[in-house]
């Protein structure tokens, strides 16, 4: 694993500088039914193709960012700060 991530603050860097934070999902409201929380907590889409992910630039700007990554080729199409 040695692909590159274009950090919106630092520029293109090696993946070794980052920590993976999982798929980007919407957190349910605290009072949401437990099925919804169950789905959010334990079920992963595990997309074969492009998916939106959280990445933390641990050895760089130390900011959380989101990236569109093709999980079969490890090509990162774009990376940006969450809105």
């Amino acid at each position, binding site marked *: *694993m*040695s*692909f*590159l991530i274009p950090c919106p603050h630092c520029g293109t860097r*090696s*993946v070794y500088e980052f920590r993976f934070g999982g798929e980007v999902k919407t957190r349910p409201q605290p009072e949401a039914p437990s099925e919804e929380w169950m789905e959010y*907590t*334990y079920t992963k889409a595990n997309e074969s193709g492009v998916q939106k992910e959280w990445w933390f630039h641990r050895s760089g700007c130390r900011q959380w960012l989101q990236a569109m990554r093709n999980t079969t080729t*490890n090509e990162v199409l774009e990376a940006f700060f969450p809105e």
Partner: protein
Amino acid sequence: MADSTEKFSFQFDGQTVEAHDGDTVASALYRAGRRIFTRSFKYHRPRGLLCMAGKCPNCMMNVGGTPNVRACITPARAGMSVQHQNAYPSLDHDLLSVAQRFDWLMPVGWYYKTMTHEWSWHAAEPYIRKVAGLGVAPEPGGGSTDYEHAWMHAEVAVIGGGPAGLQAALELVQGGAQVTLVDDQPELGGHLRYRKQAGKVPAELIAQLRAHARAEPASLEIISRAYCFGLYEGNLLGVLQASPHAGAIERLIHLRAKRVVVATGAYEVPFTFENNDLPGVMLSTAVQRLIHLHGIKPGNRAVIVASDAQGDEVAADLREAGVEVVTRLAPHQVISGVGSSHIKAVRAKDGEFTCDLLVLCGQRVPDAGLLNQAGGKLSWNEERGAFLPVDLPANVSAVGEVTGAWMACATPQPPENIPYLKRSFVCLCSDVSTADLRDGISEGFDHIETLKRYTTLTMGPCQGRMCQLAGIGVCAHETGRSMGETGVTTSRPPNPSVSLGALAGPRHHPTRLTPMHYAHQECGAVWMDMGEWKRPRYYKATSCPDERTCVEEEYRAVRERVGLIDVSTLGKLDVKGRDAGKLLDKVYTNRFSDLKPGRVRYSVLCDEAGIMLDDGTI
């Protein structure tokens, strides 16, 4: 050619060996008369120089304490110490060579057939490790530490400094690209440095490149004596440079390139016939390297095995060097090599020829491992007699002989007739013969990938460079498939092998001491490493003889009286603000918002899914 005016010496097995400037360890030893360089993995058969290019396993030695170093590409240095490996007591008289008399006891898949009980491997392993194998790893803390790492970036990386690589590099820099040229030789020019009949070293081209590198150092960097062992995701190239400067024996370069141009050329592989592994059986390009790069007369009487123009070329080189060329044979005429510790004659269909050198003009194989690793496919080409790289990814291209250009099929593939003999070696790394492969196939391992795993073909230090084509030939012949249908096994990095020291890099671990460090020491602390920190593992006192009693004493003290712990080595977080307590309630498993000032509570920290991340006190 090696300059014969500058001479120095080094030690080989306690003997002084004279070397000329420009010599490798192997060329100096060959000049000094050494012909046996290694003993084979399983049978301890004598093996001599075969490729002189770092592609085969036949010259691996212990250099300065580092095992399995390829002597043929390792520059000789004054005062260095070189030792043989896997032979007892010496290379020339190896008592363990008795193993080859018992080859009938070691059929293909021997381990799987004999180690049928759990205990059998544990019982046999210590003995097998002693008599078979490669070099011996240095003791922990021993071995060289003079390794270093470097990180580099290039717009275009050109791998290979032969005519094709040089031309590509020049055109790229002239087009304004920033280029890094990686070449594994001490000088640029590739095969033209030793194949004098094939053309002249493009001195003008090299001069132009060197001038460019001087004028605009930012646009061109030339890294010599460095081989590229892997092409990883995102065009990350693993490059290992030998002797970058006097203070380092190897430098590992992490080279990241936007584009990669592979110009690694092709290498020669031997033919299979009985006793094809005897010292004195040498590839034609190895002979040319000895003559033209090192000024060595490789033998006195040579027999050439060739099917193409390379035979004429090497014959001219041999005659020029004063070697008598006895005859020239076609590959299918050769029956066996004669001799026990060195080749004495060649038995052919039309007679026996006395010689001390058997020159094989073998099939040329594109050195396409990097292209395969990049995602390119290897597709069989009947006319070229080679698997050629196709379907390359967007940012990787190939130029020169690695593409198969100018290549011709030396012998029909798969061969029409294969002699299945226990002494006709396909894999030199682990002594796999044509007979072993046939037996493996007949036992049901008839797919090239299963055959590889069962027989260990292509799995040795040469990573299949010497044996892959012949192995596929045997598999295709036995199964009645074509070469293309049989296919190749996957190339994986590192290829060629990389020393663990180089991967580990320089040894400079920072050490952190807590403010109480010396107080611990006075109490008899025995240290353990906790990341960068030194932390007491236990305290050794006169009252306790061993670790267990010391720990028990400490345990009782904590339970019955009082204990003191130094937590300086643990991470600390400062949480401030009005809702600090609320935040801690969310991330810890128990309540913290009601914790009174001055009190301490222990808890566990979990993530959203309830997975424990850490524990600690608040």
